């Protein structure tokens, strides 16, 4: 689905991404974690070829059209320029499939609207919705693109707890259906519980990569985030609760 080799990106002489090697296959829901400025957004954009990065990315090599059928992307900036109805906005996901039949398009749009519980909002103007509702609309837009890989930059930021869990379950379900999802996340607890794999990004490099229990270790949390946390095995996965910051640590 996605293959990155030695992907690097420099901004102002500084390496924002430094030799990223990464491979994501079908069935994976990968959570991309890291503190602010670790390079998460840059990694996602470089992987898509939206930034002129050095190194190899299987997506960046494709033409814009082929890429749009291989991967959908939900950017971090929740930009909605015009007061379009929610339904029309979700339909924008179908622009990636200019030759698909109208019925196929409609079905995809309906699936996406149902998956994000947007039916009560479908005729509302997207610009007049709350931030969380807008985020759900934009997730639905990316979903309607119906690509093997879904890349989302902080998709659940600003959602209420129920909507966050719903979205994480949705991504996990997509992975279960043979898709792959790569999402940058800040909520480590939700990431630990729902992702099949976590990637910890630190200063433009991959600090850890593997199943949640292997990545969310006390040592990694201290080194990358500068926090201590309570980690426990609970019913249905890891329980994670951040406790304190570590002072005077060289992060």
């Amino acid at each position, binding site marked *: 689905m996605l293959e990155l080799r030695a992907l690097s990106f420099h901004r102002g002489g500084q390496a924002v991404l430094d030799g990223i090697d990464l491979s994501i296959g079908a069935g994976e829901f990968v959570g991309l974690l890291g503190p602010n400025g670790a390079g998460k957004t840059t990694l996602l954009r470089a992987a898509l070829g939206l930034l002129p990065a050095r190194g190899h990315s299987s997506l960046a090599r494709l033409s814009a059209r082929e890429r749009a059928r291989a991967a959908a992307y939900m950017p971090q900036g929740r930009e909605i320029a015009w*007061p379009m109805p929610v339904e029309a906005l979700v339909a924008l996901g179908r622009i990636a499939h200019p030759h698909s039949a109208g019925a196929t398009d409609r079905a995809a749009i309906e699936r996406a609207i149902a998956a994000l519980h947007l039916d009560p909002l479908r005729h509302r103007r997207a610009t007049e919705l709350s931030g969380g509702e807008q985020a759900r609309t934009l997730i639905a837009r990316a979903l309607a693109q119906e690509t093997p890989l879904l890349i989302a930059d902080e998709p659940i930021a600003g959602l209420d707890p129920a909507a966050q869990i719903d979205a994480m379950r949705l991504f996990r379900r997509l992975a279960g259906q043979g898709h792959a999802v790569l999402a940058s996340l800040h909520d480590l607890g939700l990431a630990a519980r729902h992702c099949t794999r976590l990637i910890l990004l630190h200063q433009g490099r991959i600090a850890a990569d593997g199943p949640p229990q292997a990545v969310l270790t006390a040592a990694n949390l201290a080194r990358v985030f500068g926090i201590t946390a309570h980690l426990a095995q609970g019913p249905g996965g890891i329980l994670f609760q951040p406790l304190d910051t570590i002072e005077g640590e060289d992060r």
Partner: protein
Amino acid sequence: MTGPRYPLLMAALSTLVAALFLASLLTGPAGIGPGESLAALFRGGDDLLALVMRELRLPRAILGLLVGAALGMAGAVLQGFLRNPLAEPGLIGTSASAALGAVLAIQTGLSAAFPLGLPLAALAGAALSVLLVLMLAGPRGGTLALILAGIAISALAGAATSLVLNLSPNPFAINEIVFWIMGSLADRSMLHVWIAAPFMGLGFVLIWPMRRALNALTLGEDAAASSGVHLGRLRLMLVAGIAALIGGATAVAGTVGFVGLVVPHVLRRAVGASPARLVPAAALGGAAVVLAADIAVRLIAPGRDLKLGVLTALVGAPFFLHLILKTRREGL
């Protein structure tokens, strides 16, 4: 998406444009009945009435239609592309540069020596401004770079126009320039139609296939690029298309402002805010507005040659202020 509303809107706009086109044909100082006028138009022959209809009224009505459609469409495209409801074709410097080209033609006497001199100079100005904008904004330049480049070129072209006026030793040339800048459709011939139409046709052909991409841009450049839009190509096609539309319109009508700003804004809600649907709707709306304004200048001050551009600016500028206040209230 919004049911039958969109086809209905397009049908209503088309009817309005057709009615205004007819009204434009029938409005003039000659004071002849409508039946007689239309009969003369189709009868042919060389009597005075047929000449008035064929050589004066018909080109004026056609140009009103074309110029209005070009201005409305260019405004809709530019607003969609820049995702800014305050954008106007003048913004990327095309109008000002086209005007500068025309002013230079008048000043150097090119327009007097050679009837096509003025329109060709306006087109050259528009084309040059587009090349400059593309050079300044760069192949990967973002929206902000494009706007800034446009502002710089507008300012430069405006200053150059002022310089020409400032240094002009010939008061008649100044007079002519000032009147031309005001924008008008009076005393145009079929020759003007043949000059403008190909460029507007080219602009239309360049812009029409880009409508879906304009929709994708609603969610920003990254989202559009990841839905398969080739941003560099889109930018090239749109800027060239807008230049062709505005260059053609400015060449034959001078500067007619605010149509490209007001029309897309008024029609936006009616098309469900879709930038793609706004393109044809704004073309029809622009044609209706310019045809109506051109009829109004003939009715308000017959014999005084009230300029079309003056009227659109008088109506449009307060609307622009209203828009700014509204945008501020909505906290955009």
